[in-house]
């Protein structure tokens, strides 16, 4: 059990670290930098500051987003109501930071009494 807790701690610490281990196909990104970008370029407006999503404006994005290639493709050329974010206004590097931030979002708490 102790070993498991240590493993969980290490994983959490890794998630909180500056350099995020990239998911398959994702460039390396910095979650802290991504957090700032998520707010400044307006992602939070529809998806919430925690990327938790809203039924009214935009879906939840984290902590397990689409694969980076699909994520990037959608951001650049969305099919639905989302406005496009081209590389001119959000670079590929910035997008990688944003992706790292989304992946770093915590899992929701289990068994919340108010949600029973």
């Amino acid at each position, binding site marked *: 059990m102790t070993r498991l807790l240590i493993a969980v701690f290490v994983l959490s610490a890794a998630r909180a670290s500056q350099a995020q281990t990239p998911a398959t196909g994702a460039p390396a990104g910095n979650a802290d930098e991504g957090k700032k970008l998520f707010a400044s370029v307006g992602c939070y407006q529809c998806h919430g500051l925690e990327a*938790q999503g809203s039924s009214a404006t935009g879906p939840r994005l984290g902590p397990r987003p689409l694969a980076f290639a699909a994520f990037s493709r959608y951001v650049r050329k969305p099919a639905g109501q989302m406005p496009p974010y081209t590389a001119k*206004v959000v670079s590929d590097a910035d997008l990688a930071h944003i992706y790292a931030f989304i992946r770093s979002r915590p899992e929701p*708490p289990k068994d919340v009494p108010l949600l029973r």
Partner: protein
Amino acid sequence: MSEKRSVDRRDFLKTAAATGAAAFAPAQTSAAAPQADPPVADEAETTDRPGGDFMVDVLKSLDFEYVAANPGSSFRGIHESIINYGGNAAPEFITCCHEESSVAMAHGYFKAEGKPMAVLCHGTVGMQHAAMAIYNAYCDRVPVYLMAGNSLDATLRRPGVEWAHSVQDAAAMVRDFIKWDDLPFSLPHFAESAVRAYKIAMTPPMMPVLLVLDGGLQEDPITPELGSRLRVPKLTRASAPQGNSAAVVEAARLLVAAQTPVIVADRAARTPAGITLLIELAETLQAPVVNQGGRMNFPTRHPLNQSPNARQLVANADVILGLELTDFWGTVNASRDALTRTSRPITKPGTKLISVTALDLAMKGNYQDFQRYPEVDIAMAADGEATLPALIEACKRLVTADRRSAFAARGKRLAEAHASWLERARAEAAYGWDASPISTARMTMELWGAIRNEDWALVAESGIMSDWTSRLWSFDKHYQSLGGSGGAGVGYGAPAAIGAALSNKKRGRLSVTIQGDGDFLYAPGVWWTAAHHQIPLLAVMHNNRAYHQELMHVQRMANRHQRGVTRAHIGTTIDNPNVDFATIAKGLGVHAQGPITNPNDLGPALKRAIDVVKRGEPSLIDVVTQPR
């Protein structure tokens, strides 16, 4: 100068006619003669029976509980009659700080009470302030009984302000978005028009009506001769129009034969009976119901409530019944807000569309709230709720044993889907649970935990807070949800909630609203009204420190134009400095707490606030929230 008004309006008319005739007669008087009214013998300074008293008699016959107003000299006569002659009861004068608040209070009150509130305002500056709220009520098909003061006789106006507060046609400014108006020229005329206005306002489609009250009519004494002619006409409410019987049978035939029918309801349930009827129709057909939220149409926890799955249900439907839809076209089409605007049907080819709406009986042209033209297969120009009994009976007559068996299987599938949607919503609500600013899901569920065992009524605009309330709360009573503003004119939320809370007060219901920050700032004086009149209301702020809808619109433009995407907050956010809403509320006499940023502080704050509300007072909690 004498200011004795004519005693009898007929005399005034005669005088006016004579004056008009004189204008074409050879000049009898010198152009240089001084302007002066003729001397009046035996000038009376008092009267114990002004016209306003009779107006109050008529208003009492119409059973008005309240009249909301910001005081104005153009209706000082009827104001005094209400508070003295009428005893300030039925109607009781509700003091408002802005005419927009008066009308929006009446708007919210009607949806909780089922009968209109009267509103008094100046025919000029008051109507100008009231106009947006009147438009909201018009778009929301809500009757508001408006009375506007005016001073018609130019020769009797006081110099200065009374001229600025007089107008030839006071109703002109709002005539595009009210149902009917009149300018009574005598007290008997007032009596007929007052009763007629009530009848028109309350006949579906319901809308605001306006009577313009001349100052002389309110203030002049009722002579014995005039008094002998005064009577209050009988009010007979018009029954709501029902759908044509052949159209009802054809609609029932389509619905019973359908494999994938969907019932969509917007402003369908006008009364508690409307909910019962819609449940009966849905259960008869075991058909899914999508509640668009214009009214409390259908219980949220009923297994046939499939509102979260609206898009897919519409896409798969072979028959769609729309009951009092604001936007049938928008229900069956998708449109995209991009540089090139596009739209496409989301229904399958051949899907039959059935519309029942009283709006087909009355629609105006200038203001465009009527949405795109829907190409339906059956259009009943009729009231949705009034048509349901016949439609239910027609469906029941057509249901065979085979169809009943198919319906049962469909109902089972839908119940499973309903349970699945509820579980999914609960799971989604947990994301961002401990975040600060506080997530809208967390705030919604902290509030639900605090009120769920009370006789509660959510008097907020529907759809606010990412629809978490309708997704996770159990609504089953007609007063628990009141729909939206209608015209999306911001500033409706607070006064409408306070108006609805005024209705709920006498029934001991716990009124609860979710209060937007931008909405709060339009006319915050209405919180003083709530404190002054001891209107119990729990207000929990959804303070995202922005006009967030507009922020998203500007962001869309910035993304489209590619000149930078980081400045959409300019002109759209409400920060720097942050508004201290609790301090504002306290200054207006309202118990208040906040700003609350830690989600763990919310539960205790709600408990304290509910204790205050149960003592009969309003209480506000400023909660800093996620944007949506």
